[in-house]
């Protein structure tokens, strides 16, 4: 079978699983976030934390809670990493302070950029108490913010968006924990290791020494993919046989990456009382993902016909097709796990994962972040369409006025501003230029990929870049924090402003937002925004490399 055909088959298999899963999961999440009763375990949490579960918050209080939780998370995770030498199962591993700070911000922002190597720097206690926990709660934060925005669209005449602590707890307890537990057991049965062993050395059959690693990997792997986090237990991430031992675990991991982002549109449709709106979201996300998979499959399959078969940086058990699909699923969902090394892809094959990030992570985007990123694009699309036909732009009976458009525009501008300014800074400073492994256009791609990955909270890497140095650690930490929380605050402001409005009745003059035409309009908006912003720098990186 040709690589192209193999990739098409792989896409169909994954699409079939997602098609089967999105209705039950989407319906479940709708129930979770609209349920007016609490589970007993949740009531225990609320009592310990000291929050009134029935007290809803204004957008500003909701945003403050998100920020407070993030600050507390960074501080506690940083502290935990710095004192890991005093804790059990540290295995003698440690991080320098700038690496630790970068890591703390990285896992809190759901980026999971790793400037450390798992085998060298993170003991089992930090992996479980620190990194696994942030894998859960950073994803739950994304879900909470997305749900708050959807409430803004579905409610009227209110200044309340829900309670962050309730949404955070429910997302963790009712959505992520049950799914992660099932996934971790399946991964364990598929061969992913789960133990507390220290590395030990054995002598092979042929008389050579080899170190065998251990660790609570299955529990972390499951939530790493499900929460679109992506921080590998080991340096090689999901290419490591202990994280991803075979074709079945690989399929499961790809599905885990995509299942929440592709089920949330259904939840959105139910929450706004119009499932067609959810179908449009799925359509936009699916179109973009299939488009980027096609582009990179084409690039990698032409490389695969050469003597090296495009196998540099890929694993035999996955092959080119399942590596390409994983690469797109992981960059399209802002995960950043890898089962193959993107730095070794052909120029265009590696450029497409970069493109996936520069689209603003809506193909389909991370857990929660994908849906709110998509809705921001919808606001822009509605506004542009309104300007074109000279009508007041409306979305689901809400007027897209000044507050709405400025919020949406600022969200859209944050990431490009971060990416372009930071890449510019990185290419003029010798300290970051020396960190490149490859020269020329590919070297520019390495730097731009790192900054785009951080600013989009993706976390995947052109791993040739030696990013573990104070300058890049701090620059990327700043990109991650700003790239995560500035958009979140603006999205909540947008939600607050939408919720305060009444609902305008649908008239003959209302532009429908549930049609294929509107799907096309949103896809176009995403592509044009990314194209206008990034084409010049892409031309100097992957495109120049492909043409040379």
């Amino acid at each position, binding site marked *: 079978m040709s690589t192209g055909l193999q990739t098409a088959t*792989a896409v169909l298999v994954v699409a079939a699983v997602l098609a089967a899963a999105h209705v039950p999961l989407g319906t479940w999440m709708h129930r979770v976030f609209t349920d007016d009763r609490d589970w007993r375990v949740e009531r225990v*949490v609320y009592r310990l*934390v*000291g929050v009134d579960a029935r007290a809803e918050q204004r957008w500003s209080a909701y945003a403050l*809670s998100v920020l*407070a939780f993030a*600050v507390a998370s960074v501080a506690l995770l940083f502290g935990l990493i710095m004192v890991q030498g005093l804790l059990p199962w540290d295995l003698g591993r440690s991080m320098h302070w700038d690496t630790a700070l970068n890591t703390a911000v990285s896992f809190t922002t759901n980026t999971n950029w790793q400037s450390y190597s798992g*085998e*060298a720097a993170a003991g089992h206690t930090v992996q*479980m*108490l*620190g990194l*696994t*926990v942030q894998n859960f*709660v950073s994803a739950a934060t994304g879900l909470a913010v997305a749900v708050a925005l959807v409430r803004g669209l579905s409610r009227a005449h209110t200044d309340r968006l829900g309670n962050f*602590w309730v949404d*955070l707890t429910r997302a*963790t307890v009712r959505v992520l*924990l049950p799914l992660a537990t099932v996934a*971790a057991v399946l991964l*364990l049965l598929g061969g992913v290791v*789960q*133990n507390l062993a220290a590395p030990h050395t*054995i*002598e*092979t*059959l*042929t*008389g050579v020494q*080899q170190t*065998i690693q*251990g660790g609570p990997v299955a*529990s972390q792997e499951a939530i790493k993919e499900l929460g679109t986090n992506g921080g590998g237990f080991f*340096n*090689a991430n999901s*290419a*490591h*046989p*202990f994280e991803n031992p*075979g*074709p079945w675990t*690989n*399929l499961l991991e790809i599905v885990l990456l995509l299942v929440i982002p592709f089920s949330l549109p259904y939840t959105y449709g139910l929450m706004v009382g119009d499932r067609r709106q959810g179908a449009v979201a799925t359509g936009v996300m699916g179109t973009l993902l299939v488009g980027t998979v096609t582009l990179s499959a084409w690039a990698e399959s032409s490389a695969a016909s050469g*003597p090296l*078969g495009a*196998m*540099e*940086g890929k*694993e*035999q*058990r*996955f*092959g080119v097709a399942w*590596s390409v699909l994983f690469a797109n699923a992981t960059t399209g969902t802002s995960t950043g796990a890898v089962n*193959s*090394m993107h*730095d070794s*892809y*052909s120029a265009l094959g590696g450029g497409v994962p970069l493109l996936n990030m520069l689209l603003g992570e809506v193909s389909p985007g991370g857990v929660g972040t994908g849906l709110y990123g998509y809705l921001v694009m919808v606001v822009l699309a509605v506004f542009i369409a309104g300007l074109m036909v000279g009508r007041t732009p409306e979305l689901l009976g809400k007027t897209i006025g000044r507050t709405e458009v400025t919020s949406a525009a600022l969200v859209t501008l944050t990431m490009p501003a971060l990416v372009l300014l930071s890449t510019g800074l990185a290419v003029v400073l010798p300290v970051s230029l020396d960190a490149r*492994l490859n020269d020329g256009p590919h070297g520019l791609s390495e730097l731009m990929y790192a900054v785009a990955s951080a600013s989009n909270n993706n976390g995947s890497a052109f791993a040739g870049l030696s990013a573990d140095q104070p300058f890049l650690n701090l620059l990327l930490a700043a990109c991650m924090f700003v790239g995560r929380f500035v958009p979140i605050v603006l999205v909540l402001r947008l939600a607050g402003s939408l919720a305060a409005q009444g609902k305008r009745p649908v008239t003959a003059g209302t532009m429908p937002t549930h049609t294929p035409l509107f799907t096309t309009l949103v896809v176009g908006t995403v592509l044009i925004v990314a194209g206008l912003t990034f084409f010049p720098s892409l031309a100097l990186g992957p495109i120049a490399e492909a043409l040379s």
Partner: protein
Amino acid sequence: MTRQIGAAVKALLVLTVVCGIVYPAAILGVGLLVPERAAGQPVRVDGREVGSALLGQPPSGPEWFQGRPSASDAAGDTSGGSNYGPANPDLAAAVADREKALRAANPDAPQTIPADALTASASGLDPDISPEYARWQVARVAAARGLEQTRVLRLVDQHVRRAPLGILGQDRVDVLELNVALAALGRG
């Protein structure tokens, strides 16, 4: 804000107990039911651990099947690929070196070298090679062991693992398992 930070710290601590202790401990508990899998499928010969069925091993003598090239020599203390881009001259040099070494060690092998023999894997610990690369090595292994080529070839064919359903991943041969069987063949 102070009240919010207080709530945040308390929420984080409670969720740390749930997600950072109870959850991994539960999965560790399930692991006790499948101890071999939880430990990474160790391979034992005469009671001695000689590796993991999931991990590729460092290269060795001509009488053994060799795994794929590794950026870390499959030492196991770290993992990862070369990260060379396709136009990187270091990649071309590494491939040329590998080709030369393979030709020198396998004078009787077919002209075309399989791609997975020339390229470093993503993990540096790829346990598998393609069936083509396994067959490509048969002449050398058989000669070094004084075995008939057909016998070694049959052993390779017995160890080919097909891609599940014909579409998940690719066909492959686990090098350690093949070598364990090879050692047993020599004795038997």
